[in-house]
C-alpha cells in the first residue's frame, strides 16, 4: 500500500490537509467570537507577521531565547562534566539538583522577577534557569556512563586532564548531552513565552496575550500559529544539526539506515562507516566530528579496575 504511486509523502499529507480543510470549512461562516474564520486568521497572519512584527516581536523573542539557551548549554555541560567526574561532589549536590529538577521551571519566574526586575536580563535568566537543569542532569548521566577504563588508560598514557575531557568524556557523553539539549529547547521555549506574558512590551507571548485581551481572536490564532512554527523550526534545526554532528556516533553504533551505509560504502567521505581502529587517522577530530576509533583502540589496552 505504501508502495503506491502516491507513495509515502502523499500519505503523510492526507491527515494534515484534511484537518486544515476541516478547520477552513467549519469556520468559514462562523460568527462565533471564539472561532473566527480561518481565512481571517490567514489575513491576520499576512498583515501582522509579514513582516511588521518580525523585527518588533519575533526577533526579540528569538534573541532572548538564543541567549538564555546558549547560556544554559554552556553552564549545564560545564557543571555536568564537573559533577559527572567528581562522584563525591555529585553526591553532595544531589539534594539540590534533585529538588531543582522536580521544581516546575515556571516557578523560577517569580524568583527572577523579584530579584532582577522585568527586562531582557530577567527574561534571559528565566530561559537559562528553566533549561539548564535538564541539560546538566543529562550531562552528568552521560559522563557517568563513560567507561572508566578509558580514562584510566588515558591517564596512564599521560594524557592531560583537559584533553581527556575534550577527547574522551565529551564525545562519549555527547548522545546523552544531545538528549538533554533537545529537552532543554522545549523548556526554554515555554519559559520564553510565559516570561513575555508577565509584564512585557514585546515578544511572541506578549503579542498573543495582547491580541486576546483586545478581543482580536483572529490575531490571537495567528500568533499561536507563529509560535507553533517557531517551535517547529527550532526543533527541526536542532535535529538537523544533531544529525550532522552525531553522525559519527550512529555510524559507530551501526545505527545508520541501510541507504546511508550503502552510499558511504560506495563513496566513503573520509573513513568507512565501520572501520578498523588502526585505519583511522591520528587526529581524532575529523570532518564528521570526533571519531570513536581511538577510543576503540584504547579498549584493547590492558587496564586495572578502579
Amino acid at each position, binding site marked *: 500500500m505504501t508502495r503506491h504511486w502516491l507513495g509515502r509523502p502523499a*500519505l503523510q499529507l492526507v491527515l494534515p490537509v484534511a484537518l486544515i480543510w476541516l478547520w477552513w470549512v467549519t469556520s468559514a461562516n462562523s460568527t462565533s467570537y471564539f472561532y473566527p474564520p480561518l481565512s481571517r486568521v490567514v489575513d491576520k497572519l499576512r498583515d501582522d507577521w509579514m513582516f511588521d512584527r518580525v523585527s518588533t516581536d519575533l526577533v526579540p523573542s528569538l534573541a532572548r531565547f538564543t541567549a538564555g539557551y546558549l547560556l544554559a548549554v554552556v553552564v549545564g555541560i560545564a557543571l555536568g562534566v564537573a559533577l559527572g567526574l567528581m562522584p563525591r561532589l555529585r553526591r553532595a549536590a544531589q539534594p539540590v539538583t534533585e529538588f531543582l*529538577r522536580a521544581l516546575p521551571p515556571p516557578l523560577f519566574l517569580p524568583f527572577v522577577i523579584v530579584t532582577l526586575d522585568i527586562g531582557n536580563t530577567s527574561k534571559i535568566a528565566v530561559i537559562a534557569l528553566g533549561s539548564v537543569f535538564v541539560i546538566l542532569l543529562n550531562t552528568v548521566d552521560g559522563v557517568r556512563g563513560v567507561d572508566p577504563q578509558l580514562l584510566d588508560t588515558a591517564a596512564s598514557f599521560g594524557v592531560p586532564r583537559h584533553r581527556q575531557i575534550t577527547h574522551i568524556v565529551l564525545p562519549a557523553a555527547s548522545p546523552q548531552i544531545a538528549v538533554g539539549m533537545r529537552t532543554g529547547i522545549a523548556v526554554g521555549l*515555554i519559559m520564553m513565552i*510565559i516570561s513575555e506574558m508577565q509584564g512585557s512590551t514585546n515578544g511572541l507571548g506578549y503579542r498573543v496575550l495582547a491580541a486576546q485581551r483586545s478581543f482580536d481572536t483572529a490575531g490571537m490564532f495567528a500568533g499561536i500559529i507563529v509560535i507553533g512554527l517557531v*517551535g517547529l523550526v527550532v526543533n527541526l534545526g536542532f535535529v538537523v544539526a544533531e544529525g550532522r554532528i552525531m553522525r559519527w556516533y550512529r555510524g559507530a553504533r551501526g545505527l545508520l539506515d541501510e541507504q546511508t551505509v550503502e552510499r558511504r560504502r560506495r563513496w566513503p567521505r573520509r573513513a568507512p562507516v565501520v572501520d578498523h581502529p588502526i585505519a583511522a587517522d591520528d587526529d581524532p577530530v575529523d570532518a564528521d566530528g570526533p571519531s570513536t576509533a581511538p577510543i576503540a583502540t584504547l579498549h584493547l589496552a590492558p587496564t586495572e579496575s578502579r
Partner: protein
Amino acid sequence: MTAPASAAARLGERVLLPLVGLAVVLAAFELAPRVGVLPRASFPPVSEVFGAFVDIVGTEEFRAALWATLRAWGIAMVLVTAVGVPLGFLIGSSKVATLVSRLTIDFLRPIPSVALIPLLVLIYGTRPSLKIALAVFGALWPLLFQAMYGIRDVDPVARDTAKAYGLGVFARLRRITLPSTAPFVATGMRLSAAVALILVVTGEYVVGVEGLGKSVFFFQSGGAYDTMYAYILAAGLLGLAINVVFATVEKRVLFWHASQRSTGLVTGATA
C-alpha cells in the same frame, strides 16, 4: 567509583555527603541575604522561608491550594493515559497509521503548549478545566510516543504464537501486549507526570487558576516573599514526591524487566 568499601564508609558516602551538601547550600542562602550578597528585601534567608513554610502548612488555604493542584494533575494524568496509551498502540501497530499521522504529530508536538493559554482563557476563563486542558495537551506526547515505540517492540513471534494458539484479542492484550509494553508505558507516564505538573502550575501562575501557582503569584504581588518562596518550596516538594512515587512504582511493578537493571536516560521534563 564503585570501590569496595565498608558499610560505614558507604553510609558516609550515601547519607552524609548529601546532608553535608544540603547544609552547605542552606547555610549559603541563609548568610547571603544577611551579609548583603543577595538583596535582603527580595530574597529572605532560608530560615524565614522555612518558618513561613511551617506557618502555611497547617492552613486551610494551603491545603485547598495543594488539593486544587493535585486534583487537576490527577485528572490530567487520567485523561492523558486514557487517550495516549490506546492511541499510541493504535498508531504504532499500523504502518499506514504511523505514516498518516507522522506529519501531524511532528507539527503538533513542538508547539509550546503555553502558546494555547490565551485561547484556553477565552474558552475556560479561570476554571480548573484550563489547566487540565493545558496539561493534557503538553503531557500527551511523551506517553503517546512511548506507547508507539512499545507496541513496535512486541516480539512478533510471541504475538503470532498467541494468535496461532487461538488466544482472543483481549487475552493477547493481557498476556502479550500489556506486559511487553509495560516498561515503555511506565517510562512515558513518569515523563508525562512531570510535564503535567509543570503545566498545571503554569496555568495557575500565569492565568490565576486556583492552586499552588496562583498562591505563588498572590504572595509575589503582595510582596510577602517569604510566603511566596514557601509556596514555591511546596510545589518543588510536590514535584519531588511525584517523581519518587512514579520511579518507585516503576521499579516495583517492573522488577522482572531488564530495563530496571540499569539506569535509563534522564529525559526530564518536556512540554
